[in-house]
């Protein structure tokens, strides 16, 4: 007899799927939703599920734009599993799948901390406010297009030219990868956050980042760059 147990299929679905109890507790979530939980607040997702729930039994799909860091969604489906449970499924916004290749001659083995320090020195000529740094000094040298990456750092920091309480962190991202030239590469994350920032150069930052295979996440108070760790 044909099985209609689709749970394993949901489990490995690329779209996040979450089942909430009536009290807003998570009863079940699939693999994609586990990643989403690293960026989104479960309570906020539960509230979204309630707000877009169908009036009656059944399922309701709504088109709306949701963004959690690098995760973009264009629609959700909300439905009642039973009297006690409500479920939500989020649909990833399609992205242009540009083949990630790089011409190796432009990429030079570099100490990212040196580039960051030089850019902070330049930045502090404009912004005299104190900034906090939490950087992993042990990050080994890896391949960067030094000139391009420096421009990206300058522009990223420039978005915080009038900010105070600036906090900069640089670390390895454990367990996250990017495929470049068919090879799995690790990721370094640089995050700059403050009490506020300018967003006039966000598109220029994004363009520069894309040219360097770096992903970006813009928030009201922060900019995050995820840099491929190419040995």
């Amino acid at each position: 007899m044909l099985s209609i147990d689709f749970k394993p299929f949901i489990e490995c679905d690329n779209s996040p799927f979450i089942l909430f109890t009536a009290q807003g507790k998570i009863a079940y979530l699939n693999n994609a939703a586990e990643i989403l939980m690293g960026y989104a607040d479960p309570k906020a997702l539960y509230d979204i599920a309630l707000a877009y729930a169908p009036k009656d039994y059944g399922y309701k799909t709504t088109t709306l734009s949701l963004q959690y860091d690098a995760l973009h969604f264009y629609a959700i489906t909300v439905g009642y599993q039973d009297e006690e449970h409500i479920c939500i499924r989020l649909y990833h916004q399609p992205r242009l799948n540009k083949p990630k290749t790089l011409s190796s001659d432009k990429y030079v083995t570099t100490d990212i901390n040196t580039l960051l320090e030089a850019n902070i020195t330049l930045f502090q000529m404009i912004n005299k406010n104190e900034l906090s740094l939490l950087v992993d000094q042990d990050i080994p040298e890896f391949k960067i297009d030094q000139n391009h990456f420096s421009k990206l750092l300058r522009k990223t920091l420039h978005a915080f030219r009038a900010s105070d309480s600036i906090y900069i962190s640089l670390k390895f991202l454990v367990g996250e990868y990017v495929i470049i030239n068919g090879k799995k590469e690790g990721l370094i994350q640089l995050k700059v956050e403050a009490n506020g920032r300018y967003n006039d150069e966000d598109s220029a930052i994004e363009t520069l980042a894309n040219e360097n295979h770096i992903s970006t996440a813009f928030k009201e108070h922060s900019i995050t760059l995820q840099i491929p760790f190419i040995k």
Partner: protein
Amino acid sequence: MEQFFTNSEAVRQIVKGFNLTKTLFVSSILVGEKHTGKKRLISSLFPKAPWVDGRDMSALQEALRVHDELVITHFEQISKHDALDFQHKRIIAIADYIDNVRNVDNLFAFIYMMPPLRERPEDVDYLTKRFAAEAKEILMIDEDLTLDHSRLDLSQNSKTLKKSIFHQVMHQNADAATIEETLYHYFLKSLQGNNGYKEHIHLFEKPLIEAGLKKFGSQLQLSQVLGINRNTLRKKIHEHAID
């Protein structure tokens, strides 16, 4: 190798930035008014780098083709920014000003602004001492100098600073014969028309009264020292618009 000295914190930050990136393949530009020490700073930081004048486009393009490290002067004079390829090179450009902000922003990873001397009082002190010593040596003066710091001219940075110091040193040490000779050459050049006496008498009277007032304080006392009537002195003060 030319030495560069600074006491200014802002300039020290620029030096730090250049030192951190001097082995990297990045493009940097140092922008600042003329005579602020940009060239001296760059030549002390990159003593072995070849230099090319940005006003000569063909020489610049040839230099970019041949060298991985290059100092480009007069960058503000370059109009064809699209023709420049700085990829995978260490470029240090020097400019008196930025004409096209967007192009410069696109071309350079590091944009440093060299502050003018009027924003670097620590460096003015150092340069004043240096130029005064130079003036004493060149003019062969043994006596100690007392410079009037309010008369130092920073309008064109070190150029006018040096000039104003040399002038002060020369003026303070000029004897009567030198003043006479200076006036002689000046009159030889400028005397003309039919009212020459009146037109040139201020060259003698104005500094005489100004110095006298500073030295003796009151008009009454000065009129006695000069041996002229107080009313005559007052009239001349008015004529020469002396405060």
